[in-house]
């Protein structure tokens, strides 16, 4: 396949970037999108040029590192898949493909297609956990969880924190990410005891990071590689309002 690429090149967050064109002649349709970039980088390196910086790790669709905005969509034209699981057979010979980084104030560009997603880490640190005493592991069946609840929590826990929701949202809102975590822990008995503080703290941190508000366009859920449902956003709204109205936290 012949592929024309327009790739966002940006030296660092203080320098303005621009789209640069590259042409690849021998792209196999069995290559993953990232392998196609490996080929591009190999040729750039041989020519003594700076290779394109992009995030990647497991290349199995489960780590949440890859983060490319391809032809106007987060993780490209495929639904329910990350960039590493996108293959060149999804494109046609001679296609022009525009590749940009996630764009959000809270995700500053580090270089080229790599962005700093540590805002997500700080949101998780603010409450996306269960406080437990360390010690020996408890018996697996000590806490009974109905199957339907376990499944729903698992669907939320499938979030890999890639940030496609933020990238796809017209408001660069992180609601799907935050709500997946709030929801997952709130419906399980282990997480329920801290559900009020968690909702309050995680939403406060989300706002502090500068993400936008939710317009319920549903774009996040469509572009989410794990197809996380909007149900979780509604649940987080419920959790947050309930917590604000009933928690002991008077200071806000």
């Amino acid at each position, binding site marked *: 396949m012949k592929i024309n690429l*327009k790739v*966002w090149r940006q030296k660092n967050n203080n320098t303005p970037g621009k*789209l640069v064109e590259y042409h690849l002649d021998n792209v196999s349709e069995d290559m993953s999108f990232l392998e196609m970039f490996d080929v591009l980088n190999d040729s750039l390196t041989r020519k003594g040029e700076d290779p394109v910086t992009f995030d990647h790790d497991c290349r199995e669709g489960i780590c949440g590192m890859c983060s490319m*905005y391809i*032809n*106007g*969509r987060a993780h490209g*034209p495929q639904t329910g898949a990350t960039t590493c699981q996108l293959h060149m057979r999804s494109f046609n010979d001679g296609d022009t493909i*525009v590749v*940009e980084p996630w*764009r*959000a*104030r*809270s995700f500053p560009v580090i270089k080229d297609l790599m962005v700093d997603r540590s805002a997500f880490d700080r949101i998780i640190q603010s409450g996306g956990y269960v406080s437990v005493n360390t010690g020996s592991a408890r018996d697996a069946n000590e806490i009974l969880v109905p199957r339907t609840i376990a499944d729903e929590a698992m669907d939320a826990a499938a979030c890999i924190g890639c940030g496609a929701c933020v990238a*796809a949202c*017209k*408001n*660069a*809102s992180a609601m799907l990410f935050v709500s997946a975590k709030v929801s997952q822990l709130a419906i399980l008995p282990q997480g329920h005891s801290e559900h009020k503080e968690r909702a309050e703290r995680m*939403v*406060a941190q*989300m*706002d502090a990071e*500068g*993400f*936008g*508000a*939710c*317009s*319920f*366009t*549903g*774009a996040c859920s*469509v*572009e989410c590689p794990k197809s996380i449902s*909007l*149900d979780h*956003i*509604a*649940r*987080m*709204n*419920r*959790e*947050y*309002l*309930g917590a*604000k109205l009933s928690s002991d*936290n*008077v*200071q*806000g």
Partner: protein
Amino acid sequence: MAWVTQTLSSSLGRKVIMSLTGLFLSTFLIVHMAGNLQLFKGDGGRAFNEYTYFMTHNPVIMTVSYLLYTSILVHALMAFVLTRHNQASRPVKYAYSKPEANSDWSSRNMGILGTILLLFIIIHMRTFWYEMHFGSVPMAEYDGKQYKDLYAVVQVAFGEWWYVLLYVICMGALGYHLAHGFQSGFQSLGVRHKKYTPLIEALGKYFFAIIIPLAFAAMPIYVFLQVHHII
């Protein structure tokens, strides 16, 4: 009270304000539409003028009307604040984006639709509400009692084709605004349930987005046709 201001200024709290004011305005539309159906009565405006008298003299209605004006202002101002905040959340735009692949047009353009509706409300209130309260409206007499003849004002306004066209276009904007806004308002409040969400969505999509705007758009068209003796 720090928790109250903190809640209402959070991104979720702001959406709750949008939701509550928006849903209240939606319920107002039902009352406004039902009342204005008097225009179709074909009695020379008597039913309409009597209804207008009731709406401007009943203390409960008058109290609710202030809540209504406040809701319009808060809804618009909060939308402005949210839009500015949301735009700031993405300072560098995508060079190439295909949002139509993942979301409805109306859901992405609530601000534009809302701005059209705000301008419409200003024009609409200037034409009827302002004239009724502060302007000079001719009087009509029914059974020896004097009524402000707002029906005559309606006939003059809707006698102009461009004014009718403006109303019809704005009702289109209303339809798209409510197609997303009504069901979305419930999501902001956390109301989402397997049993009730499909009903809320259907109510928003068919009743609020189609029937209500169509009924409102039919009023200027009907009066126009009547004034010009076409029907």
